């Protein structure tokens, strides 16, 4: 059945279509926004993105606090009585249309003279004439076009934190110094014996020295600090050789110009620092891009059920949750935001937040914190805070987006850097001792030369650039990884385990047949209400098919994992689940996926599900089987065995009737036998198994049941590309290894010159940047190339 979509916001218009100007809208709010835009010639808004809008909210009286002068003071950035400037945070900013319309606000109200959007921070800075427009009117205006700002007074008092721009300053200075030093060292490169050159050499040299001092002591600070920290904890991280190199370069160059031995290596020094900082800058941009992408592009493709004021249920994206919304949280669902319990029995499992697995009971009026998992039935909650995606991200992986991001990427790099430093020192010592005997004047020269030329910057750059790029590319193809370590892990797996229901079967395409005694209206009511409380894919499929009106509150609700659910209302008790659970013992060979129903212990009938497998399943398995052991662990009965055996390659192990603990044990056992397991599940009753496996991927079809135990989320539409994702991870490790080889080649060439005492400043100045740039170019180009086959 074709659902018409609202032209403005994209939600379906099924019940309440409004037609205007030959376009359909889901409500009058959307239509009004469209009207505003078209009357002010702003219909360009719709050209850039499909359905970019959002329905304006009803906010009577909500912004009356903005009439208070004291509050206005706090919020404004600038106020001279006539012109005011304010920066407002607008969560709905998510696309280019948003930028466009918000920067064209002056067309809607002429009192607005300028408005600038900062997309990454989702805020807009508006300059307006305060005699014609008050801040409250501005906020109301923004709301009327669907861009309601989020104003929190707490934010504003602590808001004066300065953005950390130190990296840009350091980088800028290093670049400035690098350019100037290069110019100043030009005359010396050509070794022309002109009189005037000899005369002015000291001037040039001392100038280079002057430029280099701030570079060493200011721009290169963090390397020294990091190396010192590493050495203190007895670790040879990648910054140790870098810091060593910089110190030696500086000291040797200074000594050379004081004693007139040569020109010194100031050009290489400034160049080295500049490229390192450039790499770090790029890294920072990639990470902030990643975290920002994760933030706004509904990174977690999870939806949550919102209860509208007329009692209807609506599935909305998590980032659309707003304060005051009423949400429906089912059994096993995560509470995405801080909220107050309104209805229902809450048993919250806060293990993801606090580590305590003992569930906590809450009663109506209690505050529930984001991140808890509801057990035992459905609850309704009122939202206190809108969701902070970053909080959920923290829940999922606390270390990834902190400032010291280099740490998480260093598995390969760290292992190599340990050897690197030691090997270089050995080479340096050996070469020096050799020269001490041959020609001792060259000894110190050689020692310092080796330390200088052994450039670890290429090493330091390979892994971050490769992994960073891969993470970003995967993210755009809807495969979201927790961090870069997962890529390494993915490359090492040898066994792939799939869950059945919800993973290789697609919930949306299931057909259901009912056989048995017809249920009375009351019984059907209880059936629906009980189903509503469960998040099992079968319950949800069944619930979707039934008419959703008239939900009643059950007196009692219980879910028995792996068996069924039970609900009681007044004096009727209904049991839904497996045959033995509902007390049906006659039929032994029930081999299809069936959900049996009994009321008051009288068997009524069963709903039979005909599984629809995901598209591309056979192909995927055939590709995978060549390199991996494949296993299917299903909590279901053997009904699908024949179908699966036909679909899947012969050596695939099929195990049925697996309870969650069984799956966990199975994985543990195989890991002890040496298997590296990749588990793919829907996150529901696989949480333990996903956490136990080396890599756990949760398939998401827009359901709020991901568990933070998983390492990656794969959008259901990209399921058939799993093989390509794993392959690319493997290849990326190869790319890193090749880039190490590339940097080793540079090092060997450089070392050759260093050991033979022929290292000249020119040579060093060319070699070092060249190696860094080529490594970066190589890794970026190759990762882009191997990712081409992803659709």
């Amino acid at each position, binding site marked *: 059945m074709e659902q018409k979509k609202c032209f403005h916001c994209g939600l379906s218009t099924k019940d309440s279509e409004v037609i205007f100007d030959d376009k359909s809208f889901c409500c009058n709010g959307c239509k009004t926004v469209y*009207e*505003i835009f078209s*009357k*002010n*010639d702003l219909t*360009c808004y719709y050209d850039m993105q499909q359905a970019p809008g959002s329905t304006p909210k009803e906010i009577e009286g909500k912004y009356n606090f903005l009439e208070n002068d004291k509050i206005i003071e706090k919020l404004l950035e600038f106020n001279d009585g006539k012109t005011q400037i304010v920066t407002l945070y607008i969560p709905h900013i998510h696309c*280019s249309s948003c*930028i*466009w319309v918000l*920067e064209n606000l002056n*067309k*809607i*109200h*002429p009192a607005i003279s300028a408005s*600038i*959007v*900062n*997309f*990454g*921070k989702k805020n807009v800075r508006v300059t307006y004439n305060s005699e014609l427009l008050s801040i409250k009117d501005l906020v109301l*205006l923004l709301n*009327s076009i669907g861009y309601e700002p989020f104003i929190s007074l707490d934010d504003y008092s602590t808001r004066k934190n300065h*953005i950390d*721009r130190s990296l*840009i*300053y350091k980088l*800028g*200075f290093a670049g*400035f110094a690098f350019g*100037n030093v290069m*110019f100043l060292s030009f005359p010396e490169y050509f070794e022309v014996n002109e009189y*005037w050159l000899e*005369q*002015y050499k000291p*001037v040039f040299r001392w*100038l280079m020295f002057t430029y280099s001092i701030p570079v060493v002591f200011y721009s290169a600070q963090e390397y020294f600090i990091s190396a010192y920290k590493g050495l203190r904890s007895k670790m040879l991280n990648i910054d140790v050789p870098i810091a060593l190199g910089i110190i030696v370069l500086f000291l040797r160059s200074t000594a050379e110009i004081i004693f007139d031995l040569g020109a010194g290596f100031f050009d290489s020094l400034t160049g080295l620092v500049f490229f390192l900082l450039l790499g770090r800058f790029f890294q920072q*941009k990639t990470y902030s*891009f990643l975290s920002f992408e994760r933030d706004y592009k509904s990174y977690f493709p999870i939806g949550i059920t919102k209860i509208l004021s007329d009692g209807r249920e609506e599935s909305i994206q998590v980032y659309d949750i707003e304060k005051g919304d009423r949400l429906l949280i089912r059994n096993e669902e995560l509470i995405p935001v801080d909220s107050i319990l309104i209805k229902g029995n809450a048993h919250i499992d806060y293990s993801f937040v606090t580590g305590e697995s003992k569930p906590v009971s809450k009663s109506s009026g209690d505050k529930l914190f984001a991140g808890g998992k509801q057990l035992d039935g459905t609850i309704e909650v009122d939202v206190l805070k809108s969701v902070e995606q970053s909080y959920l991200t923290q829940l999922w992986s606390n270390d990834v987006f902190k400032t010291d991001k280099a740490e998480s990427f260093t598995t390969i790099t760290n292992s190599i850097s340990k050897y690197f430093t030691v090997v270089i020192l050995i080479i340096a010592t050996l070469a020096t001792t050799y020269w001490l005997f041959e020609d001792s004047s060259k000894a110190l020269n050689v020692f310092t030369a080796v330390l200088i030329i052994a450039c670890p910057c290429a090493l330091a750059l390979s892994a971050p650039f490769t992994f960073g790029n891969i993470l970003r590319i995967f993210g755009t193809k809807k495969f979201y990884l927790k961090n870069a370590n997962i890529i390494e892990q993915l490359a090492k797996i040898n066994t792939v385990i799939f869950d059945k229901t919800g993973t290789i079967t697609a919930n949306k395409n299931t057909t259901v047949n009912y056989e048995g005694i017809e249920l009375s209206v009351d019984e059907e009511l209880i059936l629906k209400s009980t189903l509503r409380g469960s998040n099992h894919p079968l319950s949800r499929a069944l619930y979707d098919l039934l008419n959703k009106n008239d939900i009643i509150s059950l007196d009692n609700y219980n879910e028995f994992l792996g068996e069924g659910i039970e609900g009681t209302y007044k004096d009727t008790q209904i049991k839904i689940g497996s045959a033995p659970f509902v007390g049906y013992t006659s039929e032994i060979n029930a081999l299809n996926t069936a959900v049996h129903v009994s009321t008051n212990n009288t068997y009524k009938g069963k709903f039979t599900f005909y599984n629809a497998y995901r598209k591309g399943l056979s192909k995927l398995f055939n590709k995978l089987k060549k390199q991996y052991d494949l296993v299917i662990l299903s909590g279901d009965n053997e009904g699908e065995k024949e179908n699966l055996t036909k679909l899947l390659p012969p050596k695939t192990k099929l195990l049925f009737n697996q309870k969650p603990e069984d799956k966990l044990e199975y994985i543990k056992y195989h890991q002890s036998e040496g298997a590296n397991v990749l588990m793919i599940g829907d996150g529901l009753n696989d949480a333990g198994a996903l956490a136990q496996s080396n890599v756990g991927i949760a398939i998401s079809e827009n359901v709020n049941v991901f568990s933070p135990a998983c390492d990656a989320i794969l959008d259901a539409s990209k399921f058939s590309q799993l093989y390509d994702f794993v392959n690319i991870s493997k290849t990326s490790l190869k790319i890193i290894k090749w880039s190490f080889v590339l940097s080793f080649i540079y090092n060997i060439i450089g070392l050759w010159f260093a050991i033979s005492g022929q290292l000249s400043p020119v040579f060093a100045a060319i070699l070092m940047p060249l190696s860094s740039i080529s490594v970066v170019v190589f890794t970026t180009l190759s990762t882009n190339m191997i990712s081409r086959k992803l659709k």
Partner: protein
Amino acid sequence: MSVIYFMLAASAIVAVVFFVAFIVAVKSGLYDDSYTPSVRMLFEDELVKEKSDKSILTKKD
């Protein structure tokens, strides 16, 4: 050839001037948002139309 002193000094001054301009630019937030300008650049300039009627909101008053 002692003009080289003068030239070096002049070049140093010019360099410093640009460097100061860089610092000022960073301080005023030029590099804080490096993404939005890339999107903004792609918007089309619209033809200025002679519109005499005011916006819908002032009409509502």
